[in-house]
């Protein structure tokens, strides 16, 4: 049994739900067991922390459950294997810090805090990492606007970039007058009627 299978088996005892997509193994653990899960994975051999990052599923089609995910990307140098330990949480919930396990988690957690507003308890230095201090909000949340400036043409016309792009998303006509996804074969979201295809 490889190291990865062992760890996944162990995480299952901690109520972890394993998932696999294209040979990438991720285990979603409940928040209460997060620290234990990561600690045991580290002891088992996943000794390098590659990344800690957040995900916001606010506008993910068909998503149910909690809004945010935080994923821990751990790598084992000896076994050459990688595992993603994930935890789901809602607005206002906090996570335990893992800076005592890896000092390198410091910046990564600060980045998640900065970009998603997830608070890590007992973090030694939880400040914004990247965005300016006077910026309100957390840019990588899906309800934070991209903040584009409209383009002004000489004759006074405005081009709104978001409207321009809307056609590409497939949920409205946009300025190209083109409804995305209305072709057979690649359609992910078919639009029944309306719109010139």
């Amino acid at each position, binding site marked *: 049994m490889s190291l990865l299978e062992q760890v996944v088996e162990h995480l299952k005892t901690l109520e972890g739900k394993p998932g696999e997509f294209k040979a990438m193994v991720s285990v979603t653990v409940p928040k209460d067991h997060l620290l234990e899960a990561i600690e045991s994975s580290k002891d088992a051999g996943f000794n390098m922390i590659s990344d800690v990052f957040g995900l916001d599923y606010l506008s993910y089609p068909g998503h149910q459950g909690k809004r945010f995910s935080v994923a821990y990307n751990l790598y084992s140098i000896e076994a050459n294997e990688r595992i993603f330990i994930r935890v789901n949480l809602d607005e206002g919930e906090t996570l335990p810090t893992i800076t005592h396990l890896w000092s390198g988690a410091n910046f990564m957690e600060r980045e998640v805090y900065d970009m998603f507003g997830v608070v890590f308890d007992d973090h030694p230095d939880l400040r914004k990492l990247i965005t*300016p201090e006077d*910026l309100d909000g957390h*840019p990588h949340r899906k309800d934070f*606007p*991209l*903040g*584009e400036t409209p383009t002004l043409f000489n004759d006074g016309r405005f081009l709104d970039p978001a409207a321009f792009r809307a056609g590409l998303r497939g949920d409205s006509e946009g300025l190209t007058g083109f409804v995305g996804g209305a072709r057979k074969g690649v359609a992910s979201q078919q639009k029944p009627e309306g719109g010139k295809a």
Partner: protein
Amino acid sequence: MALTDLFTKDVQELENEGILFSSLEKLVAWGRSNSLWPATFGLACCAIEMMQSTNSRNDLARFGSEVFRASPRQADVMIVAGRLSKKMAPIMKRVYDQMPDPKWVISMGACASSGGMFNNYAIVQNVDSVVPVDIYVPGCPPRPEALVYAVMQLQKKVRGEAFDERGIELPMVEGWAR
């Protein structure tokens, strides 16, 4: 040549002998234009091309601008090379304010001039909303040759020369033409 010649001879004659006449402004401007020291304000990718413009192939030193000064107090021209984030904008303004007069600004690259491809919450969409800009250099990144050309154009501006769109020389800007 005797000193008295200066008073007795005609201006034309003297110029033929190799004595040039100029106004003090012109002389100062000529000197300034040939030693434009840039302040290092490398921000992003364009800064690498700014570095490349001083290397042996492009050799910005031919135009007297190779001395990149780290201290704004010693610099004449600020080359804003790269995208300016909103966090960096106040710092750039301060560096500009610290430069002694007269001072010029070259906005290098699409990002500095117009926000480029980064039309989002983090990037200042044009540097001239923060500092006044004299020369815009298009490109992403502009080639070192383009920067060298921009410096040459700035030299012309510093010397008070002006050209129409076809490159034909116009009379000197007012004040210089006396």
